[in-house]
């Protein structure tokens, strides 16, 4: 009887722990499915700023330096920044099938596509946010061009304004988010 109780208790604890871990990792997009593209790419960039590095960054960015103070403010509360970027010499080196594992995750619970810009000149830009109630828990950006593919995943409370300001910092490439917003504003007028 005692053993049964112990086993049930352990199982319950395991289930609770797993649920917590799953919740914490929900907004982290698994990007490993893109790794095979590195063999065809002329340039591959892989940035991993996990929670440990995020905390380290928050600790070392100085309040005295204007730039660093700005970044410190922007990354406050973030749990991770992950970037995978590929550049190709020629067109047609990747297709919808390569992106499907990423899109499948972004079709999951909580993710909403907020921005979708299709431009012949600047490529396609999709921005996804994950909401938990009214709170934003994570952000994903998918930028595709004929010869370029970039996925950015920010885990934690973030919005487009923050992302626009983080462009070019901490390994995040310049995705033209600001210009997208300007375009949106222009369209609204």
């Amino acid at each position, binding site marked *: 009887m005692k053993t049964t109780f112990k086993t049930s208790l352990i199982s319950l604890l395991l289930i609770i722990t797993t649920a917590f871990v799953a919740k914490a990792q929900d907004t982290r997009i698994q990007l490993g499915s893109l790794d095979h593209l590195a063999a065809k790419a002329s340039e591959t960039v*892989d940035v*991993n700023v996990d929670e440990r590095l995020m905390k*380290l960054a928050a600790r070392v960015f100085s309040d005295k330096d204007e730039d660093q103070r700005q970044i410190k403010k922007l990354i406050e509360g973030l749990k991770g920044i992950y970037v995978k970027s590929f550049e190709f010499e020629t067109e047609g080196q990747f297709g919808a099938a390569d992106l499907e594992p990423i899109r499948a995750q972004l079709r999951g619970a909580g993710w909403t596509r907020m921005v979708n810009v299709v431009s012949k000149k600047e490529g396609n830009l999709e921005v996804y946010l994950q909401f938990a109630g009214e709170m934003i828990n994570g952000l994903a950006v998918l930028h595709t061009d004929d010869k370029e593919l970039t996925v950015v995943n920010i885990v934690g409370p973030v919005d487009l304004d923050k992302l626009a300001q983080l462009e070019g910092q901490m390994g995040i490439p310049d995705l033209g988010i600001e210009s997208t917003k300007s375009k949106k504003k222009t369209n609204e007028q």
Partner: protein
Amino acid sequence: MKTIATKIFIAVFVMCFISMLVAQAKGDDFNSVVKMIEEFYNVKHEGIPFLAKAGMKVATTAARIKGGTARRLAEAGSIKLAVFEDQKFNGDFAKFRSSLNQSLKVTWTPLIQTISAAGEEQTYIFLRDNGDKTNVLVITIDERDATVVQVTLSAKNLALLLKDPEGTGKSITEEATLIDQE
């Protein structure tokens, strides 16, 4: 009673053994990476035995970088450097990358990895928290040369690295190899 004592002894022994392994891994990672490059690409590095003691030299040399205005990145005496010159680095870069990440994953965190021209130029930057200091491991491999640099960074310079991982990583390698040329 005897069983409990035995269990405690085994637990303590296992814990000591694990911490010993982690400590050993922490100390030997630089050498392991150098050895891994040698075995994977069938190349040999050139030893620079006095480099670790060249703290004073580091300060003067680095001050001369960029016309003498640039600040020293590495903490004095903290540089470990292995250079591979004019050798062939032919091999499956994806396999190498995977082995490298696998071997360092216990004690190091990958920050940025860049691969150009299908593996002809590879750069890997790993970080390891060491109390109030941070160890940085920068590995660069191109068609004919490779460099492995391990340095200790102060909080100030770590901030620079986190802000601009690619640029600061390059500066760390440049700084270390400049000292080598002196």
